[in-house]
């Protein structure tokens, strides 16, 4: 018995290099697209690009360092980064398992239950954030269902605190993580997990060593999206947490406040948010956001 005769003609061929999707071939022509498509596409692009360019045009570049390092600005930036980081972590710890349950869970006795749960969980995606903030206030406020109990039992009062900012951000940002991760889990499918089981891997081990690595890109993109949503959160925050400097006044709230009185300051802070957003998109490069699926 030799191994030579087991090598078929195909196995002798050199391995194909991994396909590099998204790398344009300058000789490729594609199938073409209707020419008129460029016009609305261009207008759409301008609708996004021009306002940002306008900000750059408006900006008082000489005063920029001073505007950005004011106490109010630094305090808001620090608060925004802190709350967004904590909220994104909460999204991961709560939304991650929720996405796994929605993608993989089986409730044989209540077949429609998971679909109903998904609808509720994704509600903040379409709900006006300010409505979300008010709902949180009604639930956790002094007279709220849970809030009055918390106050009476532990003396805990959440609204208008940094905790409220975090809850508001988590409320609006979690669906972004869930959608992204659930999609990645469904794309990956259960076949690899079933294969892992036939190799002796327990569900926990299969999840750690097979499922998680497979959905890592989807999870990363979900985290980036959630973080970006947290950084930009306005409506739910102002309704539930108010705008108290150092405690609940995040960057977007400061921008709104200064827009009334100090336009140059508002423009400078807006540019800061643009930069943060660009960094998130470029560095995090969420899947599906750069067109590479």
């Amino acid at each position, binding site marked *: 018995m030799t191994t030579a005769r087991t090598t078929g003609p195909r196995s002798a061929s050199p391995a194909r290099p991994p396909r590099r999707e998204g790398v344009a071939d300058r000789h490729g022509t594609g199938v073409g697209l209707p020419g008129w498509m460029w016009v609305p596409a261009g207008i759409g692009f301008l609708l996004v690009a021009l306002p940002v360019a306008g900000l750059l045009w408006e900006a008082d570049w000489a005063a920029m360092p001073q505007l950005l390092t004011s106490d109010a600005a630094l305090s808001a930036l620090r608060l925004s980064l802190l709350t967004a980081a904590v909220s994104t972590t909460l999204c991961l710890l709560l939304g991650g398992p929720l996405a796994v349950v929605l993608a993989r869970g089986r409730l044989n006795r209540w077949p429609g239950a998971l679909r109903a749960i998904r609808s509720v969980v994704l509600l903040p995606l379409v709900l006006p954030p300010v409505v979300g903030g008010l709902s949180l206030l009604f639930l956790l406020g002094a007279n709220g269902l849970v809030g009055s109990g918390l106050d009476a039992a532990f003396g805990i009062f959440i609204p208008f605190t940094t905790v409220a900012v975090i809850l508001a951000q988590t409320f609006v940002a979690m669906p972004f993580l869930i959608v992204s991760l659930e999609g990645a889990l469904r794309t990956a499918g259960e076949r690899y997990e079933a294969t892992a*089981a036939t*190799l002796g891997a327990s569900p926990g081990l299969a999840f750690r060593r097979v499922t998680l690595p497979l959905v890592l890109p989807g999870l990363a993109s979900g985290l980036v999206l959630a973080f970006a949503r947290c950084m930009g959160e306005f409506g739910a925050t102002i309704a539930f947490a108010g705008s108290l400097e150092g405690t609940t006044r995040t960057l977007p709230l400061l921008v709104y406040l200064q827009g009334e009185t100090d336009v140059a300051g508002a423009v400078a802070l807006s540019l800061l948010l643009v930069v943060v957003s660009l960094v998130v998109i470029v560095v995090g490069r969420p899947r599906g956001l750069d067109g590479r699926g």
Partner: protein
Amino acid sequence: MSGVELTARLERAGFALDVDLSVAEGEVVAVLGPNGAGKSTLLGILSGLLRPDDGRLRVAGRPLLDTADGTFVPPHRRGIGLLAQEALLFPHLSALANVAFGPRAQGAGRGAAEERARGLLAAVGAAELADRRPAQLSGGQQRRVALARALAPEPGLLLLDEPLAALDVDATPAMRTLLRRVIADAKQTALLVTHDALDALVLADRVVVLDRGRIVEQGPAREVLARPRSPFSARIAGLDLVPGTADGTGLRTADGVELHGHAVEVVTGEAAVAVFPPSAVSVHAERPEGSPRNVFRVRVAALEPRGDTVRVRAAAPASGPDWVDGLAADVTPAAVADLGVEPGHAMWFAVKATEVAVHGMK
């Protein structure tokens, strides 16, 4: 008591499976059956993805399922491996890490697991691919790595689910031969699900024919396939088989008759079987001359009308070799009439060397 013992009954809308199956230790049993015969259901019950209404399963003496006392061992603790149609290599792991996955899951240390993985990769002729990711492997290479991975945890039973389907035509014989050798070397107990009679012939000791959820026929692979008794086995088998020993130019039967044919991945001196379709066999009243033909003297046993053709079934002539018993030739009704073929007559069967494939055999 080692090996596999299964009895299972499962009913679903419009389908019922009722089987009683055993596989001896180190034995390879092929399950042949048409679509919807219950092959996937059978695999599901064995691997633990389906729970039968009634059933008992023991592998290597260990009870894995018993509906009477509620025993149900989950898939990952059954020690039942699966090699499916698709390789399904974990895309984020190298070939080596894929193969080492099973031993690692069983608690082996990294070093021991990788050593075993290297050994198995070498056994499937993929040692040099150890560091590649699945995306850098061809389809055939992926299959070989998947085979090594399935064997790595030393499963008490290996399920082979159409392991040669969806493979390139030119890669199939090599993979079939590899499977045969590796499974034999590992003395692996295996259940092969296939619709290809040749797979069963080359890989299996025993064939079980499943039809509409029931076992309709079983026995040694060559007997079932050469002399099928159920209509389904006749339809899938429908091949002429001559056992013997491979030699350079074809096959030599036990009584020394030389059959010319082309060898398919087989080594001279190995037990082999010559395979040809009945449609390639012509029937003659006189011994035909010329051209590279194999010619056998036969006695006509029966004539079976099969639509446009008539199948002439042979029996051993009084003085001739007994291996022609059961061989079939498909000829036109006109030829039957011209030659005056009738049961009991002595005739000659001829088949061109180019139509005869010689395969290695269990």
